Structures are given as structure tokens and as C-alpha cells.
């Protein structure tokens, strides 16, 4: 068994051990297996990374087994490890391990401790399948699998119908995306004859180009990416997904799974390079999603909801980068985002932990003194996402803005303005969150306030590690590292001069956002209340998330049920089909009723009829004989 297979199988073993034996063998065993397997997987991944480096960056490849072979068509379960995989796999196993460790503290009291770690390991298994898969098929298995793990973890506390419903919603919305993904895969397969991603990329980069529209394939695959990475119109599941335990939100719904769509686009860059229309769609959808989610985040009061919308918004940033051809930059943002967003979510988890489960930031305030480690790490991560230099978020966001302006693959002034405005909103709502949570007067109940306490070391330790990474992670230039694989787009002529304007603008945006938040929410936040009072209509629309859920319910859900019930069931099955059949049956019954009168019961008449019949047939034979 090769190392790559081992990486994938380790979390699976963890899942099986914890799932089957966890309840019997106790918490110590669960913790050891649950955290140990990802940690070993992380170590093996590092080993693979060193091998990759030692081998002169030639991709490692390994076939686990042949899934099936039909005639010439072979589908094998194979793994592939190149620079892009290395980045993703290191994020997944690294951040994954950290979040597992954090979970030992966060979920300590939970009755379903073993089940939790089993699911978490299951998630890692599928996520690693996703990033290590060599063919789209394996990627898809992981893709659906992480959806499953996400479904299970969102609905982890399934006793609450709303939480179970959120899990179901996530799965189904993802399935809609997956249907697009499948379509793209089928079209690709009919055209190229393979699902092997290196081969597909090579086919599109070489000549002759496959006889299929790259944009069609690109858009179909992007529909899948929209589902998984929560872009318009399929983003609605992610905010609801916050029903899951907070470390899950950090791992799945911030750091790893939701970036799978970005990974897919970067991985299939061979197609997108030949699909300018698809790329424009990606950039446009990304920009729109980023802006829309940022505006919604302004008006949310649930600490996790704010972070969820900010995730949607940041994913939009990544897709803008991918849309303008800067795939390396998109992955760079995946990487920095994994650190600071994981840190934010885990920090939020620590806050919720301290607040005895309270998530409403209106009922917080003044926590900075009481939970200092959480506060400091949360503040660093907030600064990072807002783009304060020299923290990690600054570098990746700055590059996105730069390529949104200057890329020769679709960069434009409009795009950069939208993104800059979104970045401003991001800085603003993030500092608002920070302010309302940690500064000002405590607004919680007395008994809650009394209970506020710093989290155990297993949690704060992880927070500190992630905060450090959020601070310094940006110095490792991922785009540069990935350049031999996926080149950065060229710069439009005459744009070089504006590079420093963009850098300066980024800094200014972060500063303005911080200042504005401080201005509005400093003190007793009365200025913000005044603004809110001035724009009640706008505020209501924003806090209700543009009524998109309601819209989907009216336009898709209810008509579907209505058609199924009224048309298919009542008209189709009951009226048309069964109605016709019952009609036929009753006609036959009535006819039989008439005919039965011949059956008089008198043997004499029967015998006479026999005689008549015999005579008639004799006559007939005589006439025709």
C-alpha cells in the first residue's frame, strides 16, 4: 500500500474504530483514535510533500485498485499528489488535526462523543479522497462523501427538528449542484473518454481540442462548485449549516469542504483556460455572491451567522480570482482563509462555550477581559480577514484585488470596485462583530455573566496556533509556489503602474472599515442604532437575507409539491390511470351482469341450448361442407 492510500485510509480506520467500538471502549480510546489518525495522516502528508520536493516536484501517482473495467473503459481508484494537492492536503490534515484537538475540549460533555469523532474522521476521509483523487470519479466520491459527513454533522443534534432540517437542506442543495457536476462529468466523458484529470487537462491544453464546448463543461462543473462552495444561487444552505457543532462549522463550513469548489476550478484550470465565457460567469457570480453575502452579514446578530455569511463572501473572493485566471491566487486565499476563518469559528466556539451556549452578540459585550486568550486570537484573525497588513488575509486579498483589476483574462475596473467595496464591508462587519462581542458593557444575564470562563488549554492552544498562522501565513507565497503548475494570468498593458494604488487601497479599506466600526459601535452603539432607525426597510431586508429562502420556497419547493400532489397523484395516478382501469372494470362488470341472465339455472334450457348449438353447427357444416 502506497503512502497516498495510507493518508486516505487512516481517517477511515478512525471512523470505523470509533463508529463500531467507540461507545464500548470509552473516551480515552475515542480521543486517541479520533485525534491520532488525522495527526498521523498529517505526518504522512508531510512525508509525501518531502518526497515530492525530493523528486524534483514530479507528481506522485498511485493506483489503489481498479473500481471497474467495462471494455475499454477503465475506472480506477487512483491518487495524485502534485503541488496543488500538497497545499490542499496539508491544509486539510493540518487544520483538521487542530480542530480535532479543539473538539476534545469543546465536545467533552457531549453524550455522543464517539459518534462525533467518528463523523469527523469520516469527513476527513472523504475530504482527502476529494483532494487526492486523480480522476473526477474519485473526486466526486469524496465530493458527495463530504456532503454526507456535513449532513450528519449539521444534524448532529438531531433531536431538534430545525437542526435535522438544516442538514437535509444542505444535502439537497448540494445535490442540485452535484447534478450539475455529474452532467459536466458525463459530457466530458462522452467527449474525452476519460475522467482522469491530468489527462483531461492535457487534452484541453493540447491539439486537437476535444470536440466539446469547454464553456459548457466549465459551467456545468461550476454549478457543482456553486453547491459545495455556497455561491449564488446555491448558497442558502451554508448559513443554516451553522446548526452543527461549532468546530464542525470551522472545519467543514469554513476551512476545508466549502473550498472544494475553488479546488475543483483550480484543478480543472486546463478547461477554464479555454472557457472564457465560463470564466466570466465564475467571476461575475463570485463578485455578486461576495457583495450580497457581505451586505447580509452587516445585519446579522448571531455570531456564527455573521461568520457564515463572511465565509460565503470570502468564497466569492476566491471565485473572482479563479474567474480572472489567477488560480494560484484563489488557492492562496483558500489557504489563508483556512487559518483565519478556522481561528474565528473556533474563537466563536470558545465564546459560546464561555457564554453557556448563547450565540446572540446583542447579549454579549465586554468579554475581552474575561476571556483574554480568546479575545486576542479572535482579534488577530479579525484583523487578518479585514486585510490589515502584514497579516495573512492582507496578502491574498490584495492579490485578488490586483488581478481583478489587471488580469488579461477578464480583469476590469468595475470588478475591482465591487470587490474593494465588499472588502470595505468585510472590514466593517468583522470589526462590528469584534466590538459587540468583546467591548462595551456586558449585556448578558447576571447568572450567565457569572459563569463566563476561559476555555481549557486544548481549545485555547489551538486558537493560539491558528492565530499565529493567521498572522504569518501570508508570507508563504502560494501563487509563486504553484506557478510552475498553474501560471498566473498576464497583466493588461498599462496596468503595472496601478499596482501600488491597489496595495495602498487595500490598507486604506481595512483602516476605514475599522474606523467606521469603531465610530458606530464604540460606546453604547447609539450611532449604529440611529442609522438602523433611519433605514428600517433596508435593515429588515438585510436581516431577512433578502427573503431568498422564502423566494425559493415559493418558486421551487411549493410548486414541486403541488405538481406532485395535484397533477401527478390526483390527476395522473388516481384519475387518469386508476380511473380508466376502474371504468373498464365496471363496464366489464355491468356487461357480465347482463350476460348472466342467460344463466337461468334450468338444466332443461341448457340441454336445449346444446341441441340448438349442435343443430346449428350441423347446418353450418352442411352448407359449407
Amino acid at each position, binding site marked *: 500500500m502506497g503512502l497516498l492510500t495510507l493518508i486516505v485510509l487512516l481517517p477511515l480506520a478512525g471512523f470505523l474504530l470509533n463508529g463500531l467500538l467507540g461507545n464500548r471502549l470509552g473516551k480515552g480510546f475515542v480521543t486517541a483514535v479520533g485525534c491520532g489518525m488525522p495527526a498521523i495522516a498529517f505526518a504522512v502528508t508531510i512525508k509525501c510533500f518531502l518526497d515530492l520536493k525530493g523528486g524534483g516536484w514530479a507528481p506522485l501517482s498511485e493506483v489503489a485498485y481498479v473500481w471497474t473495467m467495462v471494455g475499454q473503459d477503465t475506472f480506477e481508484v487512483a491518487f495524485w499528489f502534485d503541488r496543488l494537492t500538497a497545499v490542499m492536503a496539508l491544509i486539510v490534515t493540518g487544520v483538521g488535526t487542530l480542530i480535532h484537538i479543539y473538539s476534545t475540549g469543546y465536545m467533552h460533555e457531549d453524550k455522543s462523543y464517539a459518534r462525533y469523532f467518528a463523523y469527523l474522521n469520516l469527513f476527513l476521509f472523504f475530504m482527502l479522497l476529494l483532494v487526492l483523487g486523480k480522476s473526477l470519479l474519485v473526486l466526486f466520491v469524496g465530493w458527495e462523501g463530504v456532503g454526507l459527513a456535513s449532513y450528519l454533522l449539521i444534524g448532529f443534534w438531531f433531536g431538534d427538528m430545525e437542526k435535522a432540517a438544516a442538514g437535509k437542506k444542505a444535502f439537497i442543495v448540494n445535490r442540485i449542484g452535484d447534478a450539475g457536476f455529474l452532467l459536466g462529468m458525463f459530457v466530458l466523458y462522452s467527449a474525452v473518454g476519460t475522467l482522469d484529470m491530468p489527462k483531461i487537462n492535457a487534452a484541453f491544453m493540447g491539439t486537437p481540442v476535444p470536440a466539446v464546448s469547454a464553456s459548457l463543461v466549465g459551467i456545468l462543473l461550476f454549478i457543482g462548485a456553486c453547491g459545495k462552495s455556497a455561491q449564488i444561487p446555491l448558497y442558502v444552505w451554508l448559513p443554516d449549516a451553522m446548526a452543527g457543532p461549532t468546530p464542525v462549522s470551522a472545519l467543514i463550513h469554513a476551512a476545508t469542504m466549502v473550498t472544494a469548489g475553488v479546488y475543483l476550478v483550480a484543478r480543472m484550470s486546463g478547461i477554464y483556460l479555454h472557457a472564457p465565457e465560463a470564466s466570466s460567469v465564475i467571476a461575475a457570480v463570485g463578485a455578486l455572491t461576495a457583495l450580497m453575502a457581505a451586505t447580509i452579514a452587516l445585519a446579522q446578530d448571531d455570531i456564527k451567522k455573521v461568520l457564515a455569511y463572511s465565509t460565503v463572501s470570502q468564497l466569492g473572493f476566491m471565485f473572482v480570482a479563479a474567474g480572472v485566471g489567477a488560480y494560484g491566487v484563489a488557492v492562496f486565499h483558500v489557504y489563508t482563509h483556512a487559518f483565519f476563518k478556522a481561528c474565528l469559528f473556533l474563537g466563536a466556539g470558545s465564546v459560546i462555550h464561555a457564554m453557556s451556549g448563547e450565540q446572540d452578540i446583542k447579549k454579549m459585550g465586554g468579554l475581552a477581559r474575561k476571556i483574554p486568550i480568546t479575545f486576542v486570537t479572535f482579534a488577530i484573525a479579525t484583523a487578518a480577514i479585514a486585510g490589515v497588513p502584514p497579516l495573512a488575509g492582507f496578502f491574498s486579498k490584495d492579490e485578488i484585488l490586483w488581478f481583478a483589476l489587471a488580469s488579461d483574462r477578464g480583469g476590469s475596473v468595475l470588478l475591482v470596485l465591487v470587490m474593494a467595496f465588499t472588502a470595505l464591508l468585510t472590514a466593517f462587519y468583522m470589526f462590528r462583530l469584534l466590538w459587540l462581542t468583546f467591548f462595551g458593557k456586558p449585556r448578558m444575564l447576571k447568572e450567565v455573566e457569572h459563569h463566563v470562563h476561559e476555555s481549557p488549554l486544548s481549545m485555547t492552544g489551538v486558537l493560539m496556533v491558528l492565530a499565529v498562522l493567521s498572522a504569518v501565513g501570508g508570507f508563504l507565497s502560494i501563487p509563486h509556489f504553484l506557478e510552475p503548475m498553474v501560471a498566473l494570468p498576464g497583466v493588461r498593458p498599462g496596468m503595472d503602474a496601478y499596482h501600488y494604488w491597489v496595495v495602498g487601497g487595500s490598507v486604506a479599506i481595512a483602516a476605514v472599515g475599522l474606523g467606521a466600526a469603531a465610530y458606530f459601535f464604540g460606546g453604547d452603539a447609539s450611532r449604529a442604532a440611529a442609522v438602523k432607525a433611519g433605514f428600517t426597510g433596508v435593515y429588515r431586508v438585510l436581516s431577512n437575507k433578502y427573503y431568498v429562502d422564502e423566494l425559493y420556497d415559493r418558486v421551487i419547493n411549493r410548486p414541486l409539491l403541488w405538481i406532485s400532489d395535484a397533477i401527478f397523484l390526483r390527476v395522473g395516478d388516481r384519475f387518469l390511470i386508476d380511473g380508466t382501469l376502474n371504468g373498464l372494470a365496471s363496464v366489464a362488470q355491468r356487461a357480465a351482469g347482463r*350476460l*348472466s*341472465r*342467460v*344463466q*337461468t*339455472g*334450468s*338444466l*332443461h334450457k341448457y*340441454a*336445449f341450448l*346444446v*341441441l340448438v348449438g349442435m343443430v346449428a353447427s350441423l347446418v353450418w357444416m352442411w352448407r359449407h361442407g
Partner: protein
Amino acid sequence: MDKVQMLQVLAASLFALGLTGVIIRRNVLVMLMCMELMLNGVNLSLATFAHNMGSAVGAVLVFLIFVVAAAEIAIAIPIVLLLVRRKRTLDIETYTDLKG
């Protein structure tokens, strides 16, 4: 009229006699006997042809009919007995339970 024709006429008459009996008589037992008469008419016809054509097939059929007739009577008589036990009469017109 040669011998074969005469025998055939006799067979046909037997058959017609039996059929008439079945149609006009009301007594179940008599009807059964009339049925036997019909069967024997057919038997006679078969035997005649068999003899005339020198083939054994007709004779075989006659034996078959014998067996069938015996079996039929063996079942019919108990049925009639049961019927009589129920309604205390042999009049066929009272047995119209299967009327549709």
C-alpha cells in the same frame, strides 16, 4: 340401405332419444339414464365405423367412453343422492341455485 347405414341410423336415433329425454324429463335420475343413452348411441356409431374400416382406433375410443361414463355415473349418483337429501325431490326444476 346397407348394414352400416342402418346401424348409423340406429345410433343416431339412440342419441336423439337420449337428448330428447334430457331436455323434456324433469326427473334427475331419468336424465342421467338418458345421458347414458346418448353415450351409447355414440359408442354404437364408433363401433360400427371401427368394424367397417378395420381400424382399432374407434374401438379404443369406445373403451375410453365406457370408462368415462362409469366414472361419471360414479360421481353423479352420489351427487344426486346428496341433492335429494337436501330438497327431498328429484325434480330438476327445483335446483336453480346457480341462476345468474
